[in-house]
């Protein structure tokens, strides 16, 4: 079933918005049965740059047919009138949406929680939720409002998940070198759960840059918050950092095959600014 969906997405993308754009080379392995997805954060400006980044996503999708996207919050900046949903989401990602790509949003601090009712964000009316793709369980967390109920839910879901990969994603970075600094309070409540229940990788946004951190307590952290907004020069050399990019907007492509997660981070101009492969925590042990 997954393969059929992928085939549909790939075919649709090849015949829709990408028709006039040359495809990009990718070095991701495209293994049979792998889970392939797009990661983008802080995207909802409706500005030219959002469209330019979206165009690159479409170009890459031709060679790397992903079936879904995870959005790391700040899906809509400013007002949220019907025309804003159109300008800041539907239009920039029209080719991807028409190609059957499923967008799975998390809420950021600029997002009205009523976005959970917007079907194309796949929040199913919830501020937080979980979903599974292949051998990967994703945990969509609302880091704006971590009430005890949500934490209880998260612990239950993490403890019950038998998936090989456990990947939470949300808005606020637990670690970063960017100007606003890490969300140490969010870290205080989430990190112990991540460590206890064997989380492998975490994706966050909020900071309008790209950072890949050295594993913290065995967990890989990616900040992918520059899909439209940019804070130029806002990442800094640090022992925390494995890779960083703050000269332009960016997004990330990921492929999970067995015990490996392959990734490529791509800039607004189409350059690959980071790439690599990570092993699952249990396998690394």
């Amino acid at each position, binding site marked *: 079933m997954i393969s059929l969906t992928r085939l549909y997405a790939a075919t649709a993308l090849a015949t829709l918005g990408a028709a006039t754009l040359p495809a990009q080379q990718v070095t991701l392995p495209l293994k049979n049965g792998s889970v392939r997805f797009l990661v983008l954060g802080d995207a909802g400006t409706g500005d030219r740059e959002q469209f330019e980044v979206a165009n690159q996503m479409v170009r890459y999708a031709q060679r790397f047919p992903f079936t879904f996207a995870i959005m790391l919050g700040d899906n809509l900046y400013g007002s949220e009138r019907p025309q804003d949903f159109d300008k800041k989401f539907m239009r920039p990602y029209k080719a991807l949406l028409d190609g059957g790509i499923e967008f799975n949003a998390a809420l950021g601090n*600029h997002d009205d929680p*009523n976005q959970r*009712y917007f079907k194309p964000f796949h*929040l199913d009316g919830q501020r937080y939720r979980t979903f599974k793709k292949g051998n990967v369980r994703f945990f969509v967390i609302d880091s704006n409002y971590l*009430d*005890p109920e949500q934490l209880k839910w998260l612990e239950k879901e993490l403890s019950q998940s038998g998936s090989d990969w456990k990947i939470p994603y949300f808005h606020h970075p637990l670690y970063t070198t960017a100007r606003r600094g890490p969300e140490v309070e969010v870290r205080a409540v989430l990190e112990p759960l991540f460590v206890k229940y064997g989380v492998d990788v975490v994706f966050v946004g909020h900071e309008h840059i790209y950072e890949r951190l050295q594993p913290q307590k065995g967990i890989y952290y990616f900040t992918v918050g520059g899909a439209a907004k940019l804070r130029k020069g806002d990442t800094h050399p640090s022992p925390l950092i494995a890779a960083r990019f703050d000269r332009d907007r960016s997004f990330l492509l990921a492929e999970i095959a067995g015990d490996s997660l392959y990734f490529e981070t791509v800039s607004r101009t189409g350059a690959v600014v980071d790439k690599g492969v990570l092993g699952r925590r249990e396998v690394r042990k």
Partner: protein
Amino acid sequence: MLRTLDFRRAALLCAAGLAVALASGCKEKSKQPEANPTNAVFDDFAKRVDAYVKLRKPLTDSIGDLDPTKSQAEITTRATSLANAIIAARAQAKPGDIFTPEIATVLATLIKQEYSRRSEPVQETREDQQDELPDFVPHVNQVYPTTYPLATFPATLLPLLPPLPDALEYRVVQHYLVLRDVEANVIIDFMPNAIPTGGPA
């Protein structure tokens, strides 16, 4: 971890209880209190929140629940209809109807104590994020301006506050603690000087 938080909350509530006892006046001084005065204050707060939920119920019933929809207009229309209905039903509402002076005293004490115990990195995080705090003065029955972000609520403070039903949430606007109807996006009540200067995200 939850046990630790419960313990912290209990400790903070003890201190808050003292504040209530002092606030409730020295005329009661000679009496031996039969119950923790803080409990009565929290019970009263819970009753006021319940009363709000009861008032809201027929309004949501008449407008209807919102299922996930592709129509952005449907989401906006329902939020606006619910907001208008709530504002009309609470036309006489005024500041302090839910955050009474008694619960405000308890919460302010609790929050200040929690802030004073923050570690340095947490204090720094909250100070760094001052620029994200919405810069408007809240009013009862005001639709929360959608052009402002909803400031991230301090994650370690939230478990210490009285729990709320799904319809409501706490938010911070400058130094105000705000009670917000989530789906209607309406400010139901607010408490000034709740958040110490220099806090939170």
